[in-house]
């Protein structure tokens, strides 16, 4: 230890600390780029959770439709202004969850694991869900 004096040791520690600090740590969500399959995946979860929240609305609608002719009429006319928005969100959630789920079932069967297919199918699910929601929106507004 006689050759390694205090000054040398301190400098070695300094270098170690600098190197530790320079490790590429990046947890900034604004700069992390999620692959398209990742976007599809988290949207699948979000859509599923949204529908979980909307489940009582569905059961309530079913209840209403069975409360005699008046309830049935009310159940068939369910598009007032804000309910339209909820309905649209529900349609998007269902369409996306359905398509993404179909993709996962195919992946379970080992269909679509190759890199290009894996990516474009994820993109297709995102676009498909949005398209279905748009068509439904036009159909409601019409």
């Amino acid at each position: 230890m006689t050759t390694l004096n205090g000054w040398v040791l301190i400098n070695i520690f300094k270098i170690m600390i600098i190197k530790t600090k320079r490790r590429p740590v990046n947890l900034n969500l604004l700069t992390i780029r999620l692959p398209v399959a990742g976007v599809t995946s988290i949207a699948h979860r979000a859509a599923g959770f949204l529908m979980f929240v909307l489940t009582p609305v569905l059961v309530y609608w079913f209840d209403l439709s069975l409360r005699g002719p008046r309830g049935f009429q009310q159940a068939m006319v369910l598009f007032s202004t804000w309910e339209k928005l909820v309905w649209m969100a529900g349609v998007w959630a269902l369409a996306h969850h359905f398509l993404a789920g179909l993709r996962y079932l195919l992946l379970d069967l080992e269909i679509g694991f190759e890199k290009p297919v894996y990516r474009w199918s994820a993109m297709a699910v995102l676009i498909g869900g949005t398209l279905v929601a748009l068509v439904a929106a036009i159909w409601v507004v019409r």
Partner: protein
Amino acid sequence: MSYRASGLRAWVWQRVSAVVLALFTLLVIGYFLSGGPSSYQDWHNLLAQAPVTVMIGLSFGALLAHIWVGVRDIIIDYISRPWLRYILLSLLALWLFSLGLWVLLLLARIFA
């Protein structure tokens, strides 16, 4: 590791219920797009048929199983405190049980 603890059972339930729900959803959408019920009587008569009632009951059961596995995964992923996790899982079970009971009563009412 046991079949249950490995998560394989939940995995299988998720897939089986997914297929049931996908088929039922297509059927319902097809029915409503092709006009749907014209009157309350029409609607009631359709639902009062035993196969239809059973199908709705089974599909809702599949929905509850599907929600259980999915939301349970979400709770396990994001809630790390064991006590909070158990409270939320218990509430979820209670909530799904209530929804199931509600639908069961509705289906029973159709025949009453």
